[in-house]
């Protein structure tokens, strides 16, 4: 936490922007009142900045790709299944996993605020919380996907999951072709954050050119 000391230094405020000064004053007040412990604030930032992120969701997806029984449990009852990998907690108490197929592509949004499955994906990116995505994901999902460079076949229908309660959604993307025999770790490396939101697809595996006949 190299930034912690600088953040707690209240003595040279003249170069602070108004919002920085306001937040420092607020933190100072809430600490002085005893409502918050500054060490817990540092620990919160550290946890979500360095330890909880999409690499955890990628482990869930990779396991589902290699273990059909795990996949079945994940789709039937996601929260305890994800907990088998010691993943879960705040913002993911009630997980639902939805599976992409050639017929159906799933897309997750929270039109009303920023609900997002924190334990598997970390904190949401700015675009997920911003009006353009929240406005258009439900009415123009194919157009939104195009802005992410995703073009689905016309025959693939889209289901949009609006996170309007404490249920939190993660997309189980389709396993990329050419990954037979990949280790779980190698598979997890193909799983992007966006693939688990539904705004992306897993990284493609480079196709080796067939050898020319001698």
């Amino acid at each position, binding site marked *: 936490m190299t*930034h912690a000391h600088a953040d707690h230094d*209240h003595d040279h405020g003249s170069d602070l*922007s108004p*919002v*920085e000064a306001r*937040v*420092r*004053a*607020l*933190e*100072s*007040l*809430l600490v*002085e*009142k*005893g*409502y*918050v*412990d500054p*060490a*817990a*604030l540092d*620990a*919160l*930032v550290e*946890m979500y*900045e360095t330890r909880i992120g999409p690499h955890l969701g990628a482990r869930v997806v990779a396991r589902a790709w290699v273990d059909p029984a795990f996949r079945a449990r994940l789709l039937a009852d996601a929260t305890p299944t994800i907990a088998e990998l010691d993943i*879960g*907690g*705040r*913002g*993911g*108490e*009630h997980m639902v996993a939805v599976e992409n197929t050639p017929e159906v592509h799933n897309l997750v*949004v929270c039109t*009303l*605020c920023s609900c997002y499955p924190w334990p598997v994906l970390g904190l949401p990116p*700015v*675009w997920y919380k*911003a*009006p*353009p995505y*929240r*406005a258009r994901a*439900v*009415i123009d*999902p*194919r157009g939104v996907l195009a*802005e*992410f460079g995703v073009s689905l076949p016309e025959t693939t*229908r*889209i*289901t*949009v999951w*609006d996170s*309007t*309660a*404490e249920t939190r959604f993660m997309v189980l993307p389709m396993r990329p072709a050419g990954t037979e025999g990949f280790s779980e770790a190698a598979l997890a490396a193909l799983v992007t954050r*966006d693939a688990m939101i539904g*705004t992306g697809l897993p990284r493609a595996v480079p196709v080796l050119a067939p050898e020319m006949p001698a």
Partner: protein
Amino acid sequence: MNGAQDLGGAHGFGPVVPEQDEPVFHAAWERRVFALAMAMGYTGAWNLDGSRAARESLPPARYLASSYYRIWLEALEKQILAKDLVTPDEVAAGTASVPARPVARVLGAGELGPRFRAGFPSDRPADGPACFAVGDAVVTRNDHPVGHTRLPRYARGRRGVVERIHGAFVFPDTNAYGAGENPVWLYTVGFAAEALWGASADPGGRVTVAAFEPYLDPA
């Protein structure tokens, strides 16, 4: 409430702009606002629904012009004042001038990991049986409460089908105001995109919402 937060289906906001290699936070103050909001929520002075209600009740123009952590900051200041945890003078001065009010708990660094790993489930024992079964046709109520609610405008007064039953959950519409958890059944309700958007719907598309039982009538 029919506030600026209820964005589903709105036009005019432009394209989605993903950021390459986006950092978790974009400024030091965002880190602190995030952590303060989490830690103050842990005190029990309010609940998650109350936080959402505070954020979405910002005046619409300010809500839409604010970054997300700016909205959190505005709401946090509003909440600590509303709960008399601080005074306006203290907020202005950034220093305490009256004794603190008791709070239920203060988050310690050591307990953060286990407490957040355990989470804060919102499901509760049900008071009675669910009114709807998977496959039931339902119509969402066309209500426009002035307070916090979680049925988006685009999904009000629409016909859909119950796809999943999640159990009984804390009801945000009352819990946001400290008026009780009032657990009610929660369902996934699926709508044909056409039922929501008419001719502009993505062909064959569907949209689902998580809908609390008081939002639903039999179709």
